């Protein structure tokens, strides 16, 4: 019952409440509806977008795959061309077999040439050395022959190199004949290069220890240097005069020259030195000298023509003249008188 009373009291308000509720709901309905629509549309949009994305991805991957395949096919064709090109290039230029072969052949040829040339060079050097040695030996032989010149054989006695039992004389004999004997002049002593430390071939003589030189006086003042080389000084001192033309031309005038000429002529022509004297008194007491031709006997002089000696017969011991008798040299007596073949050369 109480509930009913409550309900009746609320009844009057019921219509209003119901109306108000419906109105509010109606008013809200639009908003709610719109909100619902919005939410749904957003959600549908998400779904569709997700689907689209998915589709997109699928399309992309298919395209990717397809394009890759296309390029790979293309690439394989490319590779074939590049393969052939690269092989050709390498074989022709980089690792050219035939060029390498030719190069190696050229190298062996070149080596042969070089070897030949070097061989020639070595042979030439050896020849030169041998020649030098031979020349040295020849020189020694000739020097020995000159020293032993006394062993030369003569006409009478055979030398040791010219035995009479041989057909031909020894070559040493011929060498002895050609050589000039050595004079007794002292040979220059060889420079005694015993100093092994002084291994300086620019030093032509060993440094001289002047043992024989006199020592300088003690109180002597040190000479002031620097001195010029002695040869230079001598050269300057004795330099011949090279006069200029003005100097070379004589100072004297032509008059003086002519006078000198005259004097020379006079001197040349002068026969005797006697002065001219007044002839009347000079020759007064002169003794007359006979000439040679007049002072001897009449006729030709036999001296100088017929005889050359002055003869004094009172001094003669015997009446005979000199006889030409030479003392004998025993060896020379035998010459031409013995019959041996010594000294005879075929």
């Amino acid at each position, binding site marked *: 019952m109480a509930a009913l009373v409550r309900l009746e009291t609320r009844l009057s308000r019921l219509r209003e409440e119901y109306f108000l509720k419906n109105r509010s709901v109606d008013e809200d309905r639009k908003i709610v509806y719109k909100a619902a629509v919005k939410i749904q549309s957003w959600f549908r949009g998400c779904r569709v977008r997700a689907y689209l994305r998915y589709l997109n991805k699928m399309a992309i991957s298919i395209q990717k795959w397809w394009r890759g395949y296309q390029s790979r096919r293309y690439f394989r064709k490319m590779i074939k061309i590049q393969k052939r090109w690269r092989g050709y290039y390498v074989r022709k230029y980089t690792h050219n077999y035939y060029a390498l072969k030719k*190069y190696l052949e050229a*190298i062996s040829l070149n*080596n042969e040439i*070089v070897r030949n040339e070097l061989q020639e060079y070595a042979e030439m050097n050896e020849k030169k050395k041998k020649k030098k040695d031979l020349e040295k030996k020849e020189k020694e032989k000739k020097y020995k022959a000159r020293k032993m010149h006394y062993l030369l054989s003569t006409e009478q006695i055979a030398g040791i190199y010219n035995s009479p039992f041989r057909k031909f004389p020894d070559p040493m004999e011929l060498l002895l004949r050609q050589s000039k004997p050595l004079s007794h002049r002292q040979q220059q002593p060889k420079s005694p290069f015993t100093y092994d430390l002084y291994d300086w*071939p620019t030093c032509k003589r060993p*440094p001289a220890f002047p043992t024989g030189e006199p020592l300088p006086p003690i109180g002597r003042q040190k000479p002031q240097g620097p001195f010029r080389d002695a040869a230079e000084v001598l050269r300057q001192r004795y330099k011949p005069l090279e006069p200029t033309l003005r100097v070379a031309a004589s100072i004297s005038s032509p008059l003086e020259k002519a006078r000198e000429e005259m004097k020379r002529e006079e001197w040349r022509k002068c026969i005797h030195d006697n002065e001219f004297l007044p002839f009347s008194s000079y020759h007064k007491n002169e003794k007359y000298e006979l000439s040679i031709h007049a002072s001897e006997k009449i006729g030709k002089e036999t001296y100088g023509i017929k005889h050359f000696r002055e003869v004094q017969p009172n001094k003669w011991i015997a009446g005979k003249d000199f006889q030409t008798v030479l003392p004998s040299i025993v060896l020379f007596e035998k010459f031409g008188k013995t019959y041996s073949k010594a000294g005879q050369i075929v």
Partner: protein
Amino acid sequence: MSQRQVLQVFEQYQRARTHFVQAVAELSARPQNIGTLRDAGVISLLRPLLLDVVPTIQQTAALALGRLAYFNDDLAEAVVKEDILPQLVCSLSEQNRFYKKAAAFVLRAVGKHSPQLAQAIVECGALEALVICLEDFDPGVKEGAAWALGYIARHNSELSQAVVDAGAVPLLVLCIQEPEIALKRIAASTLSDISKHSPELAQTVVDAGAIAYLAQMILNPDAKLKCQVLSALSQIAKHSVDLAELVVEAEIFPVVLTCMKDSDEYVKKNGATLIREIAKHSPELSQFIVNAGGVAAVIDCIGSCKGTVRLPGIMMLGYVAAHSENLSMAVIVSKGIPPLCTCLLEEHEDHIKAAAAWALGQIGRHTPEHARAVAETNVLGTLLSMYMDIRSSEDLQLKAKRALKNILQKCTYLPALEPLLHDAPPNIMKHIVGQFSKVLPHDSKARRLFVTSGGLKKVQEIKAEPGSLLQEYINTINNCYPEEVVRYYSPGYSEMLLERVENYQPVL
């Protein structure tokens, strides 16, 4: 009268001094007297005579000191300790040429023994005085000064730098142009000693224009001069590619090749050294040398010499062959391998054998063609025996092993490999067997030959760990043959057959 007596006393004294100094100089020429002289205190007696009034006594005293110091380094140290060097240096600038020569001789004799003594010489200011002597007119003085500088610069690079800083190099280059042969020799040797230490010093020598003159002097007929000149050029060329190219640009080829045919051994050695120093830097330089016929000349030189003279030639061939396979083929074509093989067999010194082994390895390592050319001369057996020999030095063993490995890895020439199967140690064996396993599957004749020569039997006897490379190779080889054959040759087969005979039940 008294004045005369007084003067006579002085004259006697002078005569006595002269006699003493000459006698000491002559005695010091013989090494056996040096000990006695030293004990008699000769240095302190000679020291005041260096300042004597009479020039002859001074010169003879300096000569005697030089000889004493030359033979014995104790005496050289004594010379330094007694402060003789500053006096010498002062008088170097003043006196006549005989004294200068003697003083330069003393400095050379002291400086030759050790770097410390040379440093002492430098510290007392001798370098400037020596460089002034280099400008003197007399060639003997120049020679003495240049020789002293050379001995000082020889020890290490600081001393060389000191010599260069004193301004010696342009004067030395002028000395080389002088007509006297001895002076040229010594100047060339000094330049060689200066430039050997470092590239900067070599560059200094090159900047003074030395290379052109040195290159001209290669044509000189004097053997010792050629030695020094070639040594100087090789010391310059050894430092870097640029210096080597500069030396080559001076047109030394093909003139240098005539030096390889000279009658003097050391000229040949130095010529080969020069070519080696040039060839080692780059393939282009080696190519140039090969084109000029240098390889043929060096090979002839190796063939005609014996001993250490061959060593630079062998190394040169190795360097040339190492650069590229074309150059290696050029060496083979020029008949380079037989002399190297004879070197390996004939030489007694281990380092020459090691160099020959290394060179052969460089030649053969490029391609199978190269390896075949090396293997055909049957040198692989020699290399193996050298590697296994206990008496060979470590260096020789190492080089022989490396050469063997390098050649074996490319060698397909089976007749040369077979003898090696029998003696080789395991680490070499794996290469040999590996090569067989590469060749046999493809060549039936080789397979037959392998069987008939006993190689297959040997391979079966090799014990290898399962799973190792050697075992794989052995398996590959075994797979080339039918089973019965492999079983026939496996060890213990005859016992197995006999056992089967024993266990067999006869069929009645």
